[in-house]
């Protein structure tokens, strides 16, 4: 063992990267011992169309307790990312935690940083552990776009905000501004469709091979058949947004936001329902409790960009996170960059010079959906399982954030 360690140390000296320092194991590392998600289903018609967000979260929580085998009373805090719930969902998520088996002593909060809410929740818990505020926590994310998507999610802007140019731009719908960005940054429709078709293909193949089964916690829910109005109990264990498409079939879809536009239902993220949860603690704690370590959280970044260019968020956030982690972009094996729109994801990847085969190797939000608050936590399980499966180590999760922000985090699988 020690000979092997010394050998890999010497070989590490032969290539000039910060990788060796990053993959070192230390007792105060913040590690992930369980990361899972529910299936992600189509908004308005999928398996979770009649399931409230809190119930989805309850499913992720019970799955987390069951799979990790952790004594729920050890969990001191839970952060839940969500975007659309009125009141942030704070009340019903605390209730969901209690119903799932967490005792009263486990605190719960909800937080909202738009599409990065799930990642913000995980990072928030990791930082609380690192600072010593808590010892064990759960970062989670949930969204029921079926039941909570709509105009009610944004409050009417005041006169003051309307009269401020940049402030007023925060209100421009994602689709419209992404359409403009695709035009300004010259991302051709053909390239977007190609990228989207690849996402569908990769997700379809992964689904066929059952690769998502590792991370998905099947859930029994009530579902009303739209044809017969009959309420049944169904088990949801598969992402139902994944379907067979080709670049050509996507090429026929009409643009959604502008007549001569390039963005349409097939090359943008789907409206979906889903939940995800990540159990975090120090390595020393995990070892003491006999928790199996999947990987560790290293560093995260959050940046601001112009509201109308929110899609470039990952381009700005990823280099900052890499700098904090002390590695170069080439050291990273897998990038999970949320596919809000094929146009912005592709632009960020090209601009950063990332090879496409390193990006979303099992597909992304275009293929299986983007339940807003859930996505950031969902990416953690997708990333860590894929790194492990392919015997790789370093991964990045990132997303653009509405109103003009970007977030990224660096993870190491073990």
């Amino acid at each position: 063992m020690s000979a092997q360690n010394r050998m890999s140390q010497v070989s590490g000296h032969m290539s000039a990267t910060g990788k060796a320092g990053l993959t070192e194991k230390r007792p105060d590392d913040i590690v992930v011992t369980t990361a899972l998600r529910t299936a992600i289903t189509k908004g308005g018609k999928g398996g979770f169309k009649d399931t409230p967000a809190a119930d989805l979260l309850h499913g992720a929580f019970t799955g987390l307790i069951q799979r990790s085998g952790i004594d729920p009373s050890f969990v001191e805090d839970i952060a839940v990312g969500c975007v659309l719930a009125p009141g942030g969902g704070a009340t019903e998520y605390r209730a969901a935690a209690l119903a799932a088996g967490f005792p009263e002593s486990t605190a719960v909060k909800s937080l909202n940083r738009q599409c990065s809410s799930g990642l913000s929740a995980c990072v928030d818990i990791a930082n609380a552990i690192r600072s010593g505020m808590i010892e064990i926590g759960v970062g989670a994310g949930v969204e029921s776009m079926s039941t909570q998507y709509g105009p009610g999610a944004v409050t009417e802007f005041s006169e003051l905000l309307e009269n401020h140019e940049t402030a007023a731009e925060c209100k421009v719908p994602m689709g419209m501004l992404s359409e403009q960005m695709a035009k300004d940054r010259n991302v051709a429709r053909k390239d977007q469709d190609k990228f989207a078709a690849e996402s569908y293909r990769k997700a379809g193949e992964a689904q066929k091979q059952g690769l998502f089964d590792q991370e998905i916690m099947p859930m029994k829910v009530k579902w009303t058949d739209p044809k017969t109005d009959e309420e049944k109990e169904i088990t949801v264990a598969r992402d139902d947004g994944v379907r067979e498409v080709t670049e050509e079939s996507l090429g026929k879809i009409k643009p959604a936001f502008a007549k001569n536009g390039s963005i349409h239902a097939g090359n943008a993220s789907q409206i979906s329902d889903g939940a995800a949860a990540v159990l975090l603690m120090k390595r020393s704690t995990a070892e003491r409790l006999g928790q199996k370590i999947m990987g560790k959280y290293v560093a995260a970044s959050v940046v601001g960009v112009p509201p109308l260019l929110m899609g470039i968020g990952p381009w700005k956030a990823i280099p900052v996170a890499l700098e904090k982690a002390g590695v170069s972009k080439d050291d990273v094996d897998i990038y999970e960059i949320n596919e809000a729109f094929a146009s912005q994801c592709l632009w960020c990847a090209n601009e950063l010079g990332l090879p496409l085969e390193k990006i979303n190797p099992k597909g992304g939000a275009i293929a299986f959906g983007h339940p807003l608050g859930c996505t950031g936590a969902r990416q953690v399980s997708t990333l860590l399982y894929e790194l492990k499966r392919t015997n790789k180590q370093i991964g990045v999760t990132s997303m653009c954030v509405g109103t003009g922000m970007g977030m990224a985090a660096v993870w190491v699988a073990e």
Partner: protein
Amino acid sequence: MLEFRTAGFNPYSVKYSPFFDSRLAVGAGANFGLVGNGRLFILNLTANGIVCEKFFETQDCLFDLTWSEQHENQLLTAGGDGSIKLFDIGVGEFPVAGWQEHGREVFSVHWNLVNKGTFLSSSWDGTVKIWTPEKKESLMTLPVHSCVYSAQFSPHHPEIVTCVSRDSHLRVYDLRTKPSAQNHMTLAIPIHAPPKISTPGFGQTSVGPTECLTHDWNKYRDSVVATAGVDGVIRTFDMRMPSGPVNVLPGHEYAVRKISWSPHLSDVLLSASYDMTCRVWTDGSNVDQGGNGSGLGREMGRMDRHTEFAMGVDWCLFGAEGWCSTCAWDERVLVWDVREFMRTN
């Protein structure tokens, strides 16, 4: 040039005695230090070349050594098994004292040059420990949280300790400060930070953080430290303006394993690299020698007789100002005069 073969052992470190101009010690390990025994060689420079006066066997590779500043026959070794051992050349075949606290390989040991009663060690376990020969337990443990390749006392002050580590930081500790959350740390300088003044021929884009393997305090300028590591670049830092390197000396093709400032000239240093060369540099600070302050350092010469990774260098403290010793994985210790390898320009 004089040569000694450490047959069957690959040297990691060579050090001149601070008491005798003809005495050298070499720390080595079998099988490139990966697995197997270690050996400490005590060598004498004689009219008949280099002669091995004595050697000590150890259970694991010796990654570093330092001569005692108190006793001319004693020296300390850094063991792969986490042990630190004190050997006395006049006493038998076993160490006269030993310390075992580190959980992993010890990579460096250094004797305090000012307060000669203490020494330190640094280890892969992510700590630096301060010791005194009189006590079995360490006096102090400084947590670094990253594999510490090299640690030193300042040659100018007995309570200032520096170390460099895998995480690309140069840390400075002042042991006089009150113990606190910082554990005596007063500075943590990112080694990969951009230089204050751009260096001609050195790309503006740093490769980012890389492991830092070695560092050394300048013997004359009491705020200057040089570092080097996996990116093959030697950098100098001035503690009075610690945000980035003052001077950058690129040139080595692979990692630099060891650097040492000259005990005679304030601007000259010597390096040993995985590219098998040992090179002499000026950081350009010596105005009398044509230097112009920061930014204009250069390579002055190189010695490429080693045929494997060069691991150790040390300057002779005595006599004329160019004599040095180097060791490499080619199982050889070479004693040579850098002036013979200087380029004339």
